[in-house]
């Protein structure tokens, strides 16, 4: 993926670019809002990572200007905990996702991957299938190996989110935000218990497990290689 990082702090910029390069991305860094705005407009990018606090033009108005100019590039907004409404304001301004500093690298990689995969194709899909797992998004029914699996509404949403991000790492925070609309870390194993319930319904008695725990990173739904 070609990623433009707009971040004024050298240390953070270095840390993020190193990690993303390791993960196989091509990355460029802009040091302030004006430079970021220029490069975002002139070149083609798969993703923009924008810090909230930037010299010259701050992150928020940068995102607003880009969206106003019609840019559709996915944007990941970086905020600090100190700014209460940063998340809401960032998303309102047109960012697609946000991440609160300090964040773990696995969280950043998972978000970047999720945003890179976003495509309009997903919006019109009504069924998802991974191996012998079939999910009907309209009827909200699930079948494994042709046999119907009974899921609670929230379990369905959990599975739906995992299936839409198949092959990708999905973090606890991403699940909390997208499945429960909870934007803080409850500091317990709540997500883990939900996943293990879902796993017992989807994978129990199956020769091929589909839901996998990635230690220290999150979860993924995929056919094991």
């Amino acid at each position: 993926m070609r990623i433009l990082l707009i971040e004024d702090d050298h240390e953070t910029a270095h840390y993020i670019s190193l990690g993303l390069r390791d993960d196989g991305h091509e990355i460029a860094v802009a040091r302030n809002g004006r430079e970021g705005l220029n490069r975002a407009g002139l070149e083609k990018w798969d993703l923009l990572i924008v810090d909230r606090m930037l010299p010259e033009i701050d992150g928020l108005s940068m995102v607003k200007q880009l969206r106003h100019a019609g840019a559709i590039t996915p944007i990941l907004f970086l905020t600090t905990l100190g700014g209460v409404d940063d998340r809401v304001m960032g998303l309102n301004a047109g960012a697609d996702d946000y991440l609160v500093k300090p964040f773990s690298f696995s969280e950043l990689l998972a978000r970047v991957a999720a945003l890179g995969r976003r495509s309009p194709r997903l919006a019109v899909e009504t069924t998802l299938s991974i191996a012998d797992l079939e999910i009907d998004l309209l009827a909200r029914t699930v079948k494994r190996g042709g046999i119907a699996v009974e899921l609670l509404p929230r379990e369905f949403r959990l599975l739906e989110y995992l299936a839409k991000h198949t092959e990708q790492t999905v973090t606890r925070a991403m699940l909390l935000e997208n499945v429960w609309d909870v934007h803080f870390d409850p500091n317990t194993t709540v997500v883990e218990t939900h996943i293990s319930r879902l796993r017992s319904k989807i994978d129990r008695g199956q020769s091929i497990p589909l839901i996998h725990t990635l230690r220290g990173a999150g979860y993924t739904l995929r056919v094991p290689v």
Partner: protein
Amino acid sequence: MYATLTGISFLVLFSVIFLSTTRFMRHQIDDSVSSEVDEIMADAPDRGVVALQAVVEALAKHPSGFFYLLQDSNGMVRAGNLPAVDPKEGVREWPQSAKGRASAFSAIRGRGINLSGAYLFVGWSTHQLLEMEEMVIRSFAWGLAASIALALAGGLVMSGRLMHRIETVSQTSRDIIGEDLQKRLPVTRAGDELDHLAGSINAMLDRIEGLMNDLRQVTTDIAHDLRTPLTRLRQRLELANRAEHDADLARTTLASAVAEIDSILAIFSSLLRIAQIESGARRQGFKEVQLSELLGTIGELYRPMADENGQVLIETIESSLWVVGERELLLLLFANLIENALRHSPRGSTIAIRASGLGRMVHVSVVDDGPGIPQEMRDKVLQRFFRLESSRTTAGSGLGLSLASAIVKVHGATLELSDAGPGLNATVRFAAA
């Protein structure tokens, strides 16, 4: 100031009394003199000088207090007991001032009338009048002097006492500035404005002292709570450093070091969040929140965890309960209360979430049947970093309930911890939206 005011009011009073009494006495004199003149005229039917002379002479012989004068047109005294005067018509008094008075008889007030070829004057001694005037002036002068002296003395005493009390207050304030925050301003039994003020200042000092103690406690607690994970972090990094030939050990050690840092960061995040909530800045974003739905989400979120712990989570939530607030903070509040209940209750216990509307109020309770919190500790658990077990071995930062308390406060609600017999009942009372 006080003395001047007293003096002025005294003078006003004096002038009123002085003027009215002297006027009254002059009036009295004028009346009796007029009737005497009328009588003389009545006794001398033809009003001739000769007839009048006889009448006046007869009267002058028997001293009655009146003074008489009858003189002819040449200015010669024909009868009476006064020397000749300038024949002026009407009421006259002489000498004009009390100062020029030579004897008791020379101060006279009376009435003169011009008849054909004669001048008749009847007067009355003003001795008494002048005497009285003088007495009134003298007594008022003394009174004035005395009252001014009293006012001055009283003022001095009063202001002296006031100055003394103010001096005590400022001395105490200086003592408080210089370290001794326990000191309080003296409150006398007078119950006056100054005592009122001292009472308010003392209440303020109590609050400041409480806050200072909190701050001191929090500082100590932060230091204490961060030292433990930092020490562990240090040990792990050292271990990783020495594990140069064992890449796997190095990797797992580093991973656990990162987890340790995450827990330190979580403490900081919670502290920051509490501070931010307590500042009240988020109140601007408050809107109506469907509490029933929110509690449903929370219950649903935690039920699998309770199952896993062998605990039962029961929800009794009335539908469409609305409060004014921020959804995210309210989620955080009830997540904290439920996590607290789950963490501190043993296997097999029941945790109940109850929500109901009571008039204009919405009550939400999280009740467990675990060990509960002893009465005397219930206030303390809401403080930052406070934990019941001092060894701090169980999970948790000791910030959960203080975070809950801050969220409750910013919503204008109350949080009450009570005995569920056995267990803990945490009840939040909101005003309904």
